[in-house]
């Protein structure tokens, strides 16, 4: 790991900016926010719908991390670590579903051979992190909100790590 003296990476890149822009708008557009939810944010009608959306976004991230781990040996530890977190999140959502009396759903299906593409991984992680944020209002019980918020923190950390990696790649040209 570099020390601060060695570190010269530019600003964190965020790849596809569309949902990043939504976050920026959410955090900065004071008046709009004060008057209501940021436009463009998903409004999940129920916990089941919110969890289903997270499942779908997570499935794409999982497929891309698996492809990365298979194809790039130095990235194996990174991919494995993130996949372990996501598996823990999946089990957590199952527990939430059980507690809320929701049926356990089949894992979302994605293309089995997601192409190796760091920027696409970043985009998928971004969707997953924001899906967690958008899901929180669908839950009435603070325990569920707390649990999903913890997952969101992991997802946001994964997103930030990939952004730093993208930056480093761009630095290298």
């Amino acid at each position, binding site marked *: *790991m570099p020390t601060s003296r060695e570190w010269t990476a530019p*600003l964190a890149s965020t790849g596809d900016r569309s949902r990043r822009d939504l976050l920026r708008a959410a955090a900065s557009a*004071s008046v709009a926010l004060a008057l209501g*939810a940021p436009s463009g*944010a998903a409004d999940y009608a129920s916990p089941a719908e919110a969890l289903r959306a997270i499942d779908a976004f997570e499935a794409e991230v999982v497929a891309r991390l698996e492809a990365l781990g298979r194809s790039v040996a130095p990235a194996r530890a990174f991919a494995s670590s993130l996949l372990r977190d996501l598996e823990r999140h999946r089990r957590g959502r199952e527990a939430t579903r059980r507690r809320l009396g929701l049926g356990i759903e089949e894992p979302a299906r994605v293309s089995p051979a997601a192409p190796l593409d760091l920027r696409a991984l970043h985009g998928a992680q971004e969707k997953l992190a924001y899906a967690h944020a958008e899901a929180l209002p669908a839950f009435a019980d603070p325990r569920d909100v707390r649990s999903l*918020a913890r997952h969101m923190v992991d997802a946001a*950390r994964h997103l930030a*790590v990939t952004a*730093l990696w993208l930056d480093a790649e761009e630095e290298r040209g």
Partner: protein
Amino acid sequence: MAERADALGAYRALPVSRRETLLRLGRGAGVAAPVLGLLQGKAAALPKGDDTDLAILDASVALEHQAIWVYDEGLRRNLFPAGLRSYAVEFRGDHQGHRDTQIAIAEERGGQPPPAFSSYPVGTLREGDDMIREALLIEEAAQSAYLALVSRIRARDYLLSAAFILVDEVRHMTVWRRVRGLRIY
């Protein structure tokens, strides 16, 4: 004035662990006692409701003021290493956005968010490493605070906003952890 002296005294008196650092920073920022109780894990102290939302907004604004001051201080004194200065500028801008958003939400609900102090207690800041350490402390505190408080927020728009802010705080924290050579995955 006496309150401010109390806050400084409390800041200096506390030993340093992760939670205590959060409390120390919270006290230094002027976070009110009920919300500090929540940050200590006494969640039952604050039921969901408009009053709690306003208390959380006040606490969050206080922490954002503090974060902005820390970045201002580092930038003013040119303490961020050259390659990291742009991060500091970006993150300060994020915190200003978070502050303004939450002030607007609070005022919309009839609240009067706290003003910023003219200065905040920080550790020794002599060089870049000190500054990065302090920035990381602030970001870790912000992340811990939002994570602890988010489940107590009732209003949908504020909950959504706080969640998006939390995503930002995690990004800031991850960058500074990486810079300090700490584990990020």
